[in-house]
């Protein structure tokens, strides 16, 4: 199902924002790949840079004030960082599709849903006639499980619920059968039932079209439903990445442990408080030179507050940026695993 051919290759990506307070380094050296047909989740709390990374891949960041200051992005053969406007416009919608977080504001309120869909189709299918495009659009609406597609075609977004608008977004994003779909927190603004429906829809679309997906989310449980691989981001860097199984069963970074612990579980002892990770992420105006998680880490060592940890390879495809995995920290690692319960 998952081939070896890479659809997206991101290497050492760095993105800055110029604000009235100074330069904010939102992404500080992020590297990952996505293969054809594969689903990758990028997980992290608000402000960790996952959304910025996703937007950088399609260069949809507002380019003042954002700036890509380093790294390479190769999307299906295109060098995104250095690409010109025309190349980028050709790539968007046909090689890569994107859906965003807030479906309520993601559609043009003064244009019918059908026209917005038709627009996406006609953009990359110059030979297609209007009638054909409309038929195809209606088909797409059915594919995303919107009932009464023909009727819905001429309605305005205000006549759709949040969940349905998100489906329309998905329809627009996959209209020209892109190789990669980037979903930036697609379910955050929706209720739990709708969340499940959307995720289910994404899953079926993915397998039907052999499409790669990058799913951005702050919710680990959302990630677990759908994906093959997971990357955990914190303070603009990837702190751990690997196969879903590796992350969920043998997580190696204290932050990942914290994320997993903070998921409320039905079998938990209800009298105890919910687990949280105390403190907040560092300011990216002057990012720390040491491990960014150190101030909040229960297992912080001296070296952690002095230098950045490199990526340690723990197994095939599983890397973790934490000093605990340095050979000299073997004892500390053992203690940490026992103390946290992630053995």
């Amino acid at each position, binding site marked *: 199902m998952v081939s070896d051919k890479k659809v997206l290759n991101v290497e050492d990506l760095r993105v800055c924002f110029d604000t009235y307070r100074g330069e904010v380094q939102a992404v500080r050296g992020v590297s990952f790949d996505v293969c054809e047909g594969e689903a990758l989740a990028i997980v992290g709390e608000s402000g960790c840079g996952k959304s910025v990374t996703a937007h950088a891949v399609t260069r949809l960041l507002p380019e003042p004030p954002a700036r890509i200051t380093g790294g390479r992005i190769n999307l299906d053969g295109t060098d995104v960082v250095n690409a010109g406007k025309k190349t980028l416009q050709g790539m968007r919608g046909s090689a890569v599709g994107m859906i965003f977080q807030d479906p309520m504001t993601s559609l043009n309120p003064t244009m019918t849903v059908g026209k917005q869909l038709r627009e996406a189709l006609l953009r990359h299918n110059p030979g297609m006639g209007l009638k054909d495009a409309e038929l195809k659009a209606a088909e797409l609406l059915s594919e995303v499980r919107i009932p009464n597609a023909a009727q819905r075609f001429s309605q305005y977004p205000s006549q759709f619920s949040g969940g349905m608008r998100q489906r329309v977004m998905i329809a627009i994003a996959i209209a020209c059968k892109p190789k990669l779909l980037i979903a930036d927190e697609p379910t955050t603004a929706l209720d739990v039932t709708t969340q499940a429906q959307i995720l289910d829809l994404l899953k079926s679309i993915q397998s039907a079209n052999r499409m790669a997906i990058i799913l951005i989310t702050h919710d680990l449980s959302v990630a677990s439903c759908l994906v093959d691989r997971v990357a955990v981001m914190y303070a603009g860097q990837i702190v751990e990445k690997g196969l879903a199984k590796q992350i969920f069963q043998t997580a190696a970074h204290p932050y990942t442990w914290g994320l997993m612990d903070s998921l409320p579980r039905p079998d938990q002892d209800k009298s105890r408080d919910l687990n949280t990770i105390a403190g*907040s992420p560092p300011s990216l105006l002057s990012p720390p030179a040491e491990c960014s998680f150190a101030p909040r880490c229960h297992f912080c060592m001296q070296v952690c507050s002095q230098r950045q940890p490199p990526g340690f390879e723990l197994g095939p495809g599983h890397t973790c940026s934490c000093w605990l995995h340095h050979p000299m920290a073997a004892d500390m690692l053992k203690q940490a695993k026992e103390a946290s319960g992630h053995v």
Partner: protein
Amino acid sequence: MMHDHDENALSPELFAPADSIQALEDAAQGSGLSFWQDTARRLRSNKTACICMASVVILVAGSIIFPQISGYTVSEQDLLNINLGFFSEGHLFGTDEIGRDMFTRVWYGTGISLTIAFSAVLIDLLIGAVYGGISGYTGGRVDEMMMRIVDIIIGIPQLIIVILLMVVMKPGIATIIIAYSTVGWTGMARLVRGQVLKLRGSEYVLASRLLGASPARIIARDLLPNTLGIIIVELTLTIPSAIFTEAFLSYIGLGVQIPLASLGTLASDGASGFLLHPHLLMVPTVFLSATMLTFNLLGDALRDILDPRMRS
């Protein structure tokens, strides 16, 4: 398996536990500034806003001080020295066609125009705030009815009513202020009503959330400053319209009457004699435009600064 370029520098002691879980550094996280501190900081860094505020101070101070120290009065005529131009002896801005000193007159006129504008705007605020406040607070059908009345008043062309009122009342500073306020309060009423509705909504939301902080504190800390900000912006932007109305009225003869002078009367006097003595129009024009420009730009800058979206 690891690629540590500085392997020698890593000594085993480094892998001992840190002394304590390092401080949960928060305070220096960049926020923690109160609304007013943040506003003040933004204000200082916005060049336009600073220039405008300095300009307001100059205009107000000048209009009070200069007419006192210039050595002439507003209506003092000197028929031997009529129509002098700029930098004439004894008259920095020259004189008009009956020898009155333009320097004195223009600063005095600025004062009158500003007085009219400030008063009109403040009365608008009072009436509008009370009306809008009551409407928003009471809610329901009363609110709907009150707002419908506002809609109708807004539907009637305001300048025409002002002109009519000036025909009915004798033109003068007080009557101009009254005439303007009679129809000018509607904008403020709508604004205040909108804010009151928002406040009411938040109160209920807060109460239902049962958070520790009392609703009053949150209203005072977040919502009230926001409301004040919006009101200040509206006031600042209404001042130019009041000045303009006064100038317009003066031009058609319904404005401030002699022996007083305002920027409007000076400009309209100057406009008729323009062909022969341009400075008579130039001087009040510069002051009038500068005043209106100042408040417009200031209002814009304040609006940008107080825009909640810019605060994230």
